[in-house]
């Protein structure tokens, strides 16, 4: 570019910076969102991969029933690294635990972040989350139930294990136990010593495998077991589908999917803002373009000059975006991840190539839109540009000939025709506000959905007053019923299970009383009632057969119906409709009135073998803790929505104001007061705002479903619900921003000097 034009670019931006602020801001918002969401995904992915790397995590897991030497021969033929191990489920109190046994040869799926430097096969390590959840410390002894035998295990250390990253209150704890420690426990159980070989032959039930091509190997494994005469395979799955890792792995995918929602909206609005701003600039610069052409500058040079203005503006915005995005968004989102998962600290890189790609996309967008905006003016002959023609080609349409239109005040007619004449600008505001209002509905809707789901469960589906967990089996019905203030006791058994259909997942089986007044959904039909979330995850629908694995025993049941529950997830069946011995380990209590809840709680705590007692209020508070992480996200969505509205409306108000300076001055000379002039400006902006906002309301629900579906929480099911108030707030907020922005510019009309009206049109 010619040096003098280069200087003109800088001076143009410097003198008209207010006009270009909206381009800078939208570029900043778009890049902030893209880089922020990408950084969030990448940081999370890096942290997960880092723990997999340092723990030498396996890629595939095979769980089988009954050892077969042929299986090992088959694995050897696959040319993969594998280890045979013991992976059993047990429980302590009502908390389910998974037990992984290691020996001196164990090289895969190792623990990290250990509480002590070295550990031996005599150690019993538990995951940090489990320890804090149970309120115990190293050196404490816990009762562990293995194969229906209760033993006392002394915790010797803590760890983070790649198969127990889930931090949630409802997740299963993991105990990592050395083979020699297990031999001691077996001695406790049976009273005689056994060898390591015997323990392995009795309990080993898993192969963990490392391979470079997990999906191909998995296919071969499935093929091998399907052809086997005595198929002893319980399940084989890739790491990402394992019950222990499915939640975190799908969260990584969800974090990536967010890239396709929010940044897209902002990039589209950026296109519109750049288009309108550069069109306005070209319109203003008509005469200068004519002069440049008459001086002999080529079309290309002039085009590059104006393109470079938009490129420079986008670059300025992008630089802010690149800095702000990776700082703000991962910080907000990591609150959620840190709440849900225990991941070791890991230094994440600050600058990534992909950030530059997002800037490049924006630059390309700005080049393209400036080209569209400049094309027609630059193709004109120099004299056409110099003539300073600013004719407004406008025709009356059939609506304007109606009597109703004739009754509209003239200042409003000016606004209406301006909207029609500057259609691309009007469209920018409508689309921008559409984006804003749909984001606001989405933001408020997430709050509504969470509150609605929690309320529905506690007030209608399982309206208990207290929920109690027992330490050891055995009914406490009589003791609980005798407490003053208790009106009803319903005991049930919650059992840790693995369910299988299309996917394999860990879940809970609730053995309920034959008839319940507290669990209000009908479960009397043959088969099982299943919560929708579990049904979705495992891939079953009503009428399908579901494989339920309890302590290496498989039971198949038909799914009779589904229930939408927000917090309580699992499979529900009447205790008389399944072949399992009923041994209640929990109960729900109804009290005579809610005032006695705390006194009943105190009485329950005095009883023996009670592990936990929570009132409904305490459970609600606990659920609020989980949802608070999601609510942070909704606040972010709302803030960005408002920012979007501000940028779009600022741009429109400013463009309108600048373009109509002469008209405003003339109206002032004609004796119109500030309110009358302001009304015309406000009407135009407010009408576009309302149109955009109202259309946006319809996009709010689909956006809410998209955002929540890519932001699934393993602890909650979303029962989509948008309150009518949300729509009202959205309209009030968008119109509020619109009126606010307009008020600023209405005040500025005071500053317009009437002598402006005496000046020529360019």
């Amino acid at each position, binding site marked *: 570019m010619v040096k003098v034009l280069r200087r003109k670019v800088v001076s143009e931006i410097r003198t008209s910076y207010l006009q270009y602020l909206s381009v800078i801001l939208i570029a900043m918002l778009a890049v902030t969102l893209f880089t922020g969401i990408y950084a969030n995904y990448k940081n999370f992915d890096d942290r997960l991969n880092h723990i997999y790397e340092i723990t030498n995590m396996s890629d595939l897991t095979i769980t089988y029933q009954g050892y077969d030497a042929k299986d090992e021969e088959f694995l050897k033929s696959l040319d993969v690294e594998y280890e045979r191990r013991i992976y059993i489920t047990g429980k302590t109190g009502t908390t389910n635990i998974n037990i992984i046994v290691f020996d001196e040869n164990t090289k895969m799926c190792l623990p990290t972040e250990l509480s002590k430097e070295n550990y031996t096969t005599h150690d019993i390590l538990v995951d940090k989350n489990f320890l804090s959840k149970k309120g115990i410390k190293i050196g404490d002894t816990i009762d562990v139930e293995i194969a229906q035998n209760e033993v006392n295990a002394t915790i010797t250390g803590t760890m983070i294990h790649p198969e127990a990253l889930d931090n949630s209150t409802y997740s299963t704890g993991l105990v990592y136990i050395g083979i020699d420690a297990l031999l001691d426990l077996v001695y406790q159980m049976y009273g005689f010593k056994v060898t390591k070989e015997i323990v392995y032959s009795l309990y080993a039930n898993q192969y963990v495998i490392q391979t470079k091509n997990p999906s191909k190997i998995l296919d071969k494994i499935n093929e091998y077991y399907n052809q086997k005469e005595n198929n002893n395979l319980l399940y084989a799955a890739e790491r990402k589908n394992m019950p222990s890792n499915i939640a975190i792995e799908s969260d990584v995918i969800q974090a990536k999917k967010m890239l396709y929602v929010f940044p897209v909206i902002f990039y589209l609005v950026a296109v519109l803002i750049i288009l309108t701003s550069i069109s306005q600039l070209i319109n203003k610069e008509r005469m200068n373009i004519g002069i440049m052409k008459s001086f002999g500058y080529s079309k290309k040079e002039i085009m590059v000059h104006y393109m470079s203005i938009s490129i420079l503006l986008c670059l300025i915005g992008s630089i802010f975006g690149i800095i702000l995005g990776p700082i703000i968004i991962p910080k907000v989102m990591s609150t959620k991840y840190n709440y849900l998962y225990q991941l070791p600290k890991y230094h994440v890189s600050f600058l990534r190539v992909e950030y530059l790609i997002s800037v490049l996309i924006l630059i390309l967008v700005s080049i393209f839109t400036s080209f569209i905006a400049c094309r027609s003016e630059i193709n004109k002959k120099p004299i056409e540009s110099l003539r300073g023609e600013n004719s407004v080609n406008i025709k009356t349409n059939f609506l304007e000939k109606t009597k109703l239109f004739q009754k509209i005040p003239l200042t409003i007619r000016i606004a209406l025709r301006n909207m029609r004449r500057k259609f691309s600008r009007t469209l920018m505001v409508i689309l921008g506000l559409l984006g804003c209002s749909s984001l606001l509905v989405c933001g408020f809707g997430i709050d509504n959905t969470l509150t609605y789901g929690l309320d529905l469960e506690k007030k209608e589906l399982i309206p208990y007053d207290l929920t109690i967990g027992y330490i050891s089996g055995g009914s406490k019905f009589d003791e609980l019923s005798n407490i003053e203030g208790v009106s009803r006791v319903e005991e049930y058994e919650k059992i840790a299970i693995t369910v299988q259909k299309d996917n394999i997942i860990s879940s809970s089986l609730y053995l309920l009383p034959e008839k319940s007044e507290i669990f209000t959904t009908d479960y009397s039909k043959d088969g099982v009632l299943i919560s929708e979330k579990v049904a979705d995850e495992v891939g079953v629908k009503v009428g399908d057969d579901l494989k339920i694995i309890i302590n290496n025993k498989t039971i198949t049941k038909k799914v009779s119906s589904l229930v939408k529950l927000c917090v309580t997830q699992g499979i529900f069946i009447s205790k008389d409709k399944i072949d399992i011995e009923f041994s209640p380990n929990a109960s729900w209590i109804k009290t005579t009135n809610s005032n006695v809840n705390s006194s009943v709680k105190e009485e329950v705590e005095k009883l023996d073998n009670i592990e936990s007692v929570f009132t409904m209020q305490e459970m609600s508070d606990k659920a609020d803790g989980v949802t608070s992480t999601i609510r942070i996200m909704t606040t972010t969505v709302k803030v960005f929505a408002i920012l979007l509205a501000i940028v779009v409306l600022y741009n429109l108000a400013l463009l309108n104001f600048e373009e109509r300076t002469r008209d405003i001055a003339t109206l002032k000379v004609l*004796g119109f007061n500030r309110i009358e002039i302001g009304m015309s400006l406000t009407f135009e902006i407010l009408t576009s705002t309302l149109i955009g906002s109202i259309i946006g309301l319809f996009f709010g629900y689909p956006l809410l479903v998209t955002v929540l579906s890519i932001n699934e929480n393993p602890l909650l099911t979303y029962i989509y619900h948008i309150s009518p108030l949300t729509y009202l707030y959205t309209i009030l907020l968008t119109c509020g921003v619109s009126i606010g922005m307009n008020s600023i510019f209405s005040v500025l009309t005071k500053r317009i000097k009437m002598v402006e009206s005496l000046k020529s049109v360019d």
Partner: protein
Amino acid sequence: MSKIVLQHITKEYGSNETKVLALDDVSFEIESGELIVVLGASGAGKSTLLNILGGMDQATSGSYIVDDDDVTKMNDKQLSLFRRRKVGFVFQFYNLMPNLTALENVMLSEQTVKDHLNSADVLKMVGLENRIHNFPSKLSGGEQQRVSIARAIVKKPSLLLCDEPTGALDSKTGKSIIQLLKDISKNAGQIVIIVTHNANIQYIANRIIKLSDGKIIENIHNYNPKDVEEIEW
């Protein structure tokens, strides 16, 4: 019957060293029905005088009385009402609202006052009865200026101020516009003030006020104004 009186009007811009005296002790009186031409070179103070006469700007000192009201003592709101009720403006570059038709542009002015003429009638009077539904972009310069004049006179102003009304027009169109202004002053009894640098226009006026360096250097009554057709352009 209207009357305007300017007494010792001065207008200063800037302060101390940068002080510029745009109008220096300007005094004159005008009766209704008079057609005045204000002449002067660039920088003589024509525009400043026009701004003060039209209530767009306030004088630094002196008094400006219109129908017994002192405009120099008015606040912004009162000035706005003064412009609304008493002043009609004709601009050099027409300043029509591009989004309104010819009729709507005139109605815009009509609606600002209670006592007004009918917009369509006024457009007919200026010879645009067949163009009333056209937007400004579809009108020629002369036609746009006629709309501008119609807009100014529809509200029956006491004072019609015209800023270089023929400045952007060719001689033939320019003459027709001057003729129209002359007819208005004669028939409606309004005070018409034309500010221009075109010296030929002065011969049609009842009075010629010449400005130089902010001072009135001539204030001459012309008892035999020429017909528009007679003047050179």
